[in-house]
C-alpha cells in the first residue's frame, strides 16, 4: 500500500478507519464523548443528511474542520440507519457518491488509482495508447488509456450503466483481462458506483449506536417530513439481507409449510404467501420455488403470476399484503398476528430474534 497517494479523508470520509482516526485525533476519548463535547460534529451530520435529502448531493463542509467532517460522516450514517428508512439510506449513499464524483474528476490520475484500490477495485495505471486517426496535416490523433481495471470489477461497477452502448463490455478495449479506460470522467464514474455501494453497506452494517444519538432519530424524521417524505409511509423498514423463515408469523408459516409439503393451496392462500414473500424482499425465483411442490405446479404460469403480483407485469401495481384481519375473515388464518399486517409481525419477530442472537454472541 506504500505506493498509494495521500487521500484527503474530508473528501472521501468513508475510506477512513474511524477507530484509528479517533485514536489519532482524540487520544483516549470515545466517539460518544466527542459527540457530547463538540456539538459541531452533530450539526454537520444533520446538515449532511439535509443536503442529501434536499439536493441529492452532500455539500462541502464550509467552516467545519477536516476532523469534524470525517466524524460527522460517521455520525450521519448512524443517524440514517436509525431512521430505518430504506429510501433515505439509498438517497444518502447516492448523495455521498455524487459529491465524491465531483472531487474525483479533479484529482490527478495517481490519486484516482489509489482511491480505486482503497475501494477494493483491481485497477492500475496504464500507458497504453493507440493511434486512431491520421489528420490532414499528417499528425496522429491518439487514444490514450491512463487507466486499466480488471474486467470482473468493471462488470460489477458498470452493471447499471450498460444500457448505454458506450459502457457495454463489447465496446471496451479489453486485453489480458484488463479493460482500458480513456477519460478520467469515465473512470471516476465507475468509482462513483463503488462509493455508493460502500456507503450503503456502511449504513447497513451500523451496529453500535452511541447513546447521545439515539434520541435524535426524531430529528431525522423531521428532515424527511420537511421535504415531503413521511417516515411512516413510503419509507420502509430496512430489508434484511435474506428472507428469514423463522420470523414468519404463524399463519404465513402454516401456509408456507403446506406449500412445501405439496398440499393444495387455495387462491387466497397463494395470494397471501406470494405477496408476503415479495414484500419482505424475496425474489421472484424464491417465491416460484415455494410453489414448486404443488400438485398443479407449472413453472411458466407460476412465474407469470408471481411477476404480476410483484408489479413486473400488467399495470405495474405491486400488490399489497392481506391484513391479518382479512386473512382471518377469509378463513386462511386462525392464530393472532398481534399486529395489523403479517409484515409488521415479521419485522417485530426479526428484531426479537436479532436481539436474541446478539445476546448469545455477546
Amino acid at each position, binding site marked *: 500500500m506504500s505506493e498509494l497517494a495521500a487521500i484527503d479523508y474530508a473528501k472521501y470520509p468513508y475510506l477512513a478507519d474511524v477507530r484509528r482516526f479517533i485514536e489519532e485525533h482524540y487520544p483516549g476519548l470515545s466517539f460518544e464523548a466527542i459527540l457530547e463535547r463538540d456539538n459541531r460534529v452533530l450539526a454537520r451530520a444533520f446538515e449532511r443528511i439535509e443536503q442529501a435529502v434536499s439536493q441529492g448531493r452532500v455539500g462541502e463542509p464550509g467552516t467545519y474542520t477536516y476532523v469534524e467532517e470525517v466524524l460527522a460522516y460517521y455520525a450521519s450514517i448512524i443517524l440514517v440507519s436509525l431512521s430505518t428508512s430504506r429510501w433515505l439510506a439509498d438517497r444518502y449513499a447516492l448523495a455521498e457518491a455524487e459529491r465524491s464524483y465531483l472531487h474525483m474528476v479533479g484529482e490527478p490520475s495517481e490519486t484516482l488509482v489509489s482511491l480505486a484500490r482503497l475501494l477494493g477495485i483491481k485497477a492500475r495505471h496504464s500507458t497504453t495508447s493507440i493511434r486512431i486517426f491520421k489528420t490532414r496535416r499528417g499528425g496522429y490523433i491518439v487514444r490514450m488509456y491512463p487507466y486499466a481495471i480488471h474486467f470482473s470489477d468493471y462488470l460489477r461497477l458498470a452493471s447499471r450503466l450498460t444500457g448505454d452502448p458506450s459502457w457495454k463490455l463489447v*465496446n471496451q*478495449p479489453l486485453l489480458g483481462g484488463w479493460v482500458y479506460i480513456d477519460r478520467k470522467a469515465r473512470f471516476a464514474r465507475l468509482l462513483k458506483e463503488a462509493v455508493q455501494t460502500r456507503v450503503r453497506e456502511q449504513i447497513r452494517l451500523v451496529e453500535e449506536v452511541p447513546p447521545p444519538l439515539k434520541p435524535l432519530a426524531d430529528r431525522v424524521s423531521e428532515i424527511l417530513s420537511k421535504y415531503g417524505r413521511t417516515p411512516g409511509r413510503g419509507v420502509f423498514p430496512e430489508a434484511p439481507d435474506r*428472507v428469514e423463515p423463522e420470523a414468519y408469523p404463524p399463519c404465513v408459516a402454516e401456509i408456507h409449510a403446506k406449500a412445501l409439503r405439496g398440499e393444495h393451496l387455495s387462491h387466497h392462500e397463494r395470494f397471501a404467501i406470494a405477496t408476503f414473500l415479495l414484500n419482505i424482499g424475496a425474489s421472484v425465483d424464491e417465491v416460484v420455488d415455494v410453489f414448486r411442490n404443488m400438485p398443479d405446479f407449472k413453472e411458466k404460469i407460476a412465474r407469470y403470476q408471481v411477476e404480476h403480483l410483484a408489479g413486473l407485469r400488467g399495470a405495474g401495481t405491486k400488490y399489497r399484503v392481506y391484513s391479518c384481519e382479512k386473512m382471518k375473515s377469509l378463513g386462511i388464518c386462525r392464530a393472532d398476528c398481534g399486529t395489523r399486517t403479517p409484515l409488521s409481525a415479521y419485522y417485530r419477530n426479526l428484531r426479537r430474534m436479532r436481539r436474541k442472537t446478539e445476546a448469545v454472541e455477546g
Partner: protein
Amino acid sequence: MPSTSRRASSRGLLERLFRTYYQSKPALILPPDMELREFALQPFGSSIYIRHLAFSSYGELLAYITRERVPLHLYYSSAKYEYPEAPNMEDKKWLGSDLVFDIDADHIPGCGATEFSFCPRCGHRAKGDEAGPRCPSCGAELSRVSLVSDECIKSAAAQAGRLVEFLRRDFGISQVSVYFSGHRGFHVHVPCEEECASLNSNARREIVDYLRATGIDVRSILGYWEGRRGGRPVPPSPRDPGWRGWIGSYIEGLLGGGIPSLDELADLAYEAVAGLRVEVDEKVTIDISRLVRVPNSINGKAGLLVREVEPRSLKGWTYSLSELSPYRGRVRIRALTPIDIDTGGYHVEAERGETLEVDAPIGVYLACKGLAVLTSIEGVKLG
C-alpha cells in the same frame, strides 16, 4: 402391445450398456471441490431429473450410479454451494459459480438441425414441427429425431477454438477445459476461484454479448468521433485491445497499398465481426446454477462420451463415432423407421423393421437417437 414390450426390453439393453460402462470405473473428471457441487441425473425410463444429490468422493458417486439409478444423463452444478443437497436454492447458499460456455452445432448460422418425427407403431412420418404429439393415423406417441451434419459439428469445434482464443487474449483466462458434449456441441469450463466466481447473471450476459459481438459499435471502435474533422483512419492492428484487435487480425493482408476511408474500413470491420463472433448459448452462460455434464460420462442423446479436447486440436478436429464412443464390437439393431444416415464415419441404410448387425458406436448412436432399437449386445466390448 408386443411392439411396446420389445421397445422396453431394448431400453433395458441400452441401460445395461450404460451400466457396464460405469461399472468399469471410468475416469470421470470431477472438480476438486466436488463436495460443494449439486449432482443431478436423468435416469433411464424417466423424464424426471433426480436433483440435489451430493457426493464427497468419486467412489460414492460411482456406487450411486451403478447401484441406485443408471444415468442416461449425468451432471454437476457449475455453482458451488454450502449445502448442495438442500432442495431449494435459498437453502443451498450459493458460494459462486464457474464460468461455463456451450456451443451447439444447431446454433451455428446455416446449421439448423434436420428434424422429423415418426410413428414407431405404424411408420407414419412427418417433417419438423408439422406433427403434434400423437400419430394422426394410429394415435401412438410420435418419436422425434433431430440430426445435424458432421460439417456443422466441425464448425462448432472451430468456434470453440476461437472462444478459447478470446478468453485467453481478451479476458486473460488461460485455465480452460474444452469438452465435446457427447452429442453435437462443445462445452468450455473456466474454473473460478475468486473474481469470476461472484459474477452475477447480468455480468455474465455482458461476457456473452462480448463474444457474440452483440451491441458492438464498430464505427466508434474505428475512431468515428476522432475523425470528424477529416483525415484518414489508422487501420486497426492485431495487437490492439478489444474487438479492434480482432478486426485488425481479420483485415491484415486484405488491405491493398492505399489507406482506406472510414467507410471502406467499416465495411471490412462488419465482415470481420460477422466472421469472428462466437455463437455461445446465452442461457447457459448467464445461469449461475447451471448443471453441466460430467466429463467422461455418456451423453444419452447420442451414446457418446463427454470427452476432453486439447484446445490446440480443435481446428482440425474430426467427428468420429468410433473414437468418441465408449464401445466397440458389434450390435444387432432393428430399424423403427427408414434409415439413411451418413455420420461420424459410418453410413447406414435400412428399411423400416429391418434387422441388421452394425458396429457398436453407430448402433448405440441410432438407438439413442430413437431411430432403431438394440436387439442384441452380446458382441459389445468396452474401450
